[in-house]
């Protein structure tokens, strides 16, 4: 039976998406070719914002910071999460019990549920130069010389943020991978056992191989999350000190709402958007190719 005449159900969705997504998107792209302070007249200046952008060392700095944040938010959690998920699924669940495995899973997932502003408070408090717990701990164990202003010094601020982001992200891959492992036929592991395969061999040949779909999904979503990162930077460092933790989205925010350089801010966000979409297409392609090979 051919089903027809369903288009009226799309009307609210299409109208709402036009209003909230399409029109603003087009406006931002247009604005990126103009000079505008948010009030008054918009002046068309062609590609000036973009040429300025590519000569702006802050812009390049924000992107090199993002590369390190991709490491901390996507690469490390995905790899570590893969290993931990395999340990929980193929070791803890079998040698202890499923309850232990899910207890660990929930515990590791906990930082994921906390609102970003609260993450900022928690870590800002722990890393605080005067009263922070980390410096106190270091003093207590006699490593007081290591204590310093973790988020306040250009040399350590980005690495501190990276450490915090690993803490935040780790639970997501673990949960995803453990869920993916549920669909693996247990006989596969048993057969490998009978053949005398070690845990590490099973991990490499079975777990990693079978979990590939989830692996790609996790890597794409976390990489995109890293590219978009705003909240943690806003609450932890405000992009500072001296721009050591500046990221594109915060850079755009500052231009929009602090410097009233709306055209320039629009150019930054447009470049960021293009980058995210290109990256997603590349990932989707890679994923499709990997699946065809399988």
């Amino acid at each position, binding site marked *: 039976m051919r089903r027809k005449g369903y288009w009226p159900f799309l009307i609210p969705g299409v109208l709402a998406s036009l209003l909230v997504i399409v029109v603003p998107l087009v406006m931002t792209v247009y604005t990126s070719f103009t000079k505008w302070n*948010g009030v008054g007249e918009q002046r068309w200046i062609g590609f000036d914002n973009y040429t300025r952008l590519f000569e702006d060392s802050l812009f390049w700095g924000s992107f090199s910071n993002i590369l390190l944040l991709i490491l901390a938010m996507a690469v490390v959690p995905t790899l570590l999460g893969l290993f931990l998920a395999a340990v929980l699924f193929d070791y803890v669940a079998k*040698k*202890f019990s499923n309850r232990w495995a899910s207890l660990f899973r929930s515990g590791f997932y906990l930082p994921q549920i906390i*609102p970003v502003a609260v993450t900022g408070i928690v870590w800002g*408090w722990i890393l605080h130069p005067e009263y922070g717990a980390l410096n106190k701990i270091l003093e207590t164990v006699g490593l007081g010389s290591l204590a310093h202003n973790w988020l306040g010094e250009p040399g350590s601020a980005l690495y501190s943020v990276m450490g915090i982001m690993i803490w935040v992200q780790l639970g997501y891959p673990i949960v995803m991978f453990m869920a993916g492992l549920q669909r693996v036929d247990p006989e596969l592991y048993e057969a490998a056992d009978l053949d005398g395969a070690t845990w590490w061999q099973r991990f490499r040949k079975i777990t990693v191989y079978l979990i590939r779909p989830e692996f790609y999904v996790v890597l794409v979503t976390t990489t995109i999350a890293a*590219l978009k990162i705003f909240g943690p930077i806003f609450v932890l460092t405000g992009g500072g000190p001296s721009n050591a933790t500046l990221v594109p989205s915060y850079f755009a*925010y500052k231009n929009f709402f602090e410097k009233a350089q709306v055209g320039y801010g629009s150019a930054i966000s447009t470049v960021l958007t293009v980058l995210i979409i290109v990256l997603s297409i590349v990932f989707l392609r890679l994923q499709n190719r990997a699946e065809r090979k399988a």
Partner: protein
Amino acid sequence: MTVTANRPKTEPEPTVRAEKRANPVRFLVLAGLLALLLIIIAPLLIITINAVKSPADYASGGPLSLPPSLYWDGIVDFWNRVDFGQKLWNSFITSFTVAVLGVLLSVLNAYALGIGKVKGRLWFLVFFLVANLLPQEVLVYPLYFLSKEAGLYDSLISIVIIFTVIQAAFGTYLLTSVYQEFPTELLDAADVDGAGKLRTLWSVVVPVSRPTLGVLFTFFFIWTWNEFFLPLVFLVSNDNQTVPVALGVLQGDRLMDVTMTSSSGLIGILPALLFFLIFQRTLTRGITAGAIK
């Protein structure tokens, strides 16, 4: 971590149990995992013990000592100072409305795309996928500008409208793939009974897909609750702030003493923890929903 030990071969039960008791690797693995868990949980524990510590006890014992007696003034003072009840209500009503409207919009879209298979549905799906990927920075200024023009700036209504659409983009994408597999017999039976499209949607499609809709609702609620960027831009007056915004902008406030800052952290963790406990089952099922193809 040393986890390379051979798994016991499949042998009779008693041997396995004996081996379980004897194997030291088991306990090394468990100890390693417990240590890691402690590292993950430690920041939250530290915040909790300092939230209920008086500034005097903090000054004498430092951040790592257990409070000699429970001290609630930090939490109470913070609650009253920021009028936290109001913030909780703002967050709740926004998240709840977005979750309801977002699910509703997703259902309508997915009904047309997944079951109705309207023309050009592939392009609609690509659109919703891209809408999901967009960074909010690329939408924020026009939205800010337009909401000022419409008199909706600094109002929860603007946040509800924006997040309903943003969440529904994800919901449409997910739900369409679910509805594509919807059993045709049920739809045909409704046709035979003479039910119209709206009636079929309401009395057949929605009840059958209720578990998925529950997952979407949970997601939308928690995501909206945790949103920071757009609420930060849109909700500037104190009375309209949501919990994350109120906590985010108060950070570093000179009027906040050490333990009060800790209290504010704990107060922010608790609702999230509560939702996590309430929704845990739906959530663990739901997190994976996006991954299944």
